[in-house]
């Protein structure tokens, strides 16, 4: 029977540093999936995940066993991703030419208002491109709600935002994504 997260944390705190590898294996991919959706590029997302796990290791003594390790870890991850999003935005403002070619091709919709994306790549890239049009707090809310299947109460504990504010973010973000993906989604 696999050890619980709390039991592994206890072993790490007792001096067994290598036991932390189990937690890293258990959560790395899940954290990366969240970070990619929120940050928008894989290099920065992986860096954020590595920083998150290292920070979690260093502050493991603050983790209370009665709480969910995943929730605690995602609180750290959410903060790290916010910092990374802000850093990436500063970087792109400072060097706009460097990132101009990285944008995925976006066709202006039939109304010519740029609201509708007509994309011709895979669904994952379509979603990434559409997500990039949303504000970071909405991406964060969507990733927690749909990617992690969290309740609004759990999302509130992670993000620090109120439940009603999170519901509003998810609702607005979903509606916006529907518009952005309408031409290619066909559901």
């Amino acid at each position: 029977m696999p050890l619980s997260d709390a039991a592994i944390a206890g072993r790490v705190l007792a001096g067994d540093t290598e036991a932390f590898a189990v937690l890293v294996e258990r959560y790395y991919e899940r954290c990366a999936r969240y970070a990619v959706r929120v940050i928008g590029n894989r290099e920065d997302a992986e860096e954020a995940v590595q920083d998150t796990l290292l920070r979690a290791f260093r502050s493991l003594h603050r983790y209370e066993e009665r709480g969910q390790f995943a929730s605690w870890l995602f609180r750290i991850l959410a903060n790290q991703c916010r910092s990374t999003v802000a850093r990436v935005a500063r970087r792109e403002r400072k060097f706009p030419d460097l990132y101009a070619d990285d944008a995925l091709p976006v066709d202006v919709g039939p109304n010519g208002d740029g609201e509708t994306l007509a994309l011709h790549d895979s669904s994952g890239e379509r979603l990434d491109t559409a997500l990039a049009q949303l504000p970071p707090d909405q991406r964060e809310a969507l990733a927690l709600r749909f990617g992690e299947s969290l309740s609004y109460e759990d999302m509130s504990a992670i993000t620090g935002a109120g439940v009603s504010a999170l519901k509003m973010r998810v609702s607005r973000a979903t509606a916006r994504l529907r518009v952005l993906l309408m031409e290619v989604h066909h559901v």
Partner: protein
Amino acid sequence: MSDSEHRRRFETWLAAEFRRPVAISADGPERVMALVRGSAGPARRRRRGATPAAAFAFAACVLGVIAFRMATLLVPTSDDRLVGADAGLRDTISAFRDSMEGTARLVGVAVIAPAAARIAVVHDFHGWDLRITPVAQRDERAVRNAAVSIAPGLHLSPVTRGAALDFADTVQSNSTADSVPERR
């Protein structure tokens, strides 16, 4: 298809997309462990013996003792003509503050001595120099304030008896606890 059903199907699709694995570096977890092995390691758990409230109460008691003792350090400078010195210096402490400054303890003292022309703090950590820490008058209520930094260790503590000094007592100050010996 109704709009609510359309929205529900869209959300189902969205959840599937969000849960789709992302391409990550195969050595990502190993890179994390390399960083972990090179880091200082998690701090130890906080001792559960003392609650924050108990620690605060203990600190308040310690500071109270120190403040009381600091009252005995206030003496008039040599050229003062302190009228009713005993009465002026017995009602000394009206406020104090205390904070850790490295390993030294910063102690604020306040004295109300409306009849005194000048007041100073003197002690062994000053070399008994009356000019180092004058207690200046800060407001019109005749409250005078000063702050002194006391290094860890034992210090001779004078006791004011009028304008005379009695060097019989000691005050101990260190970074973790303070104890004041009983007056001999």
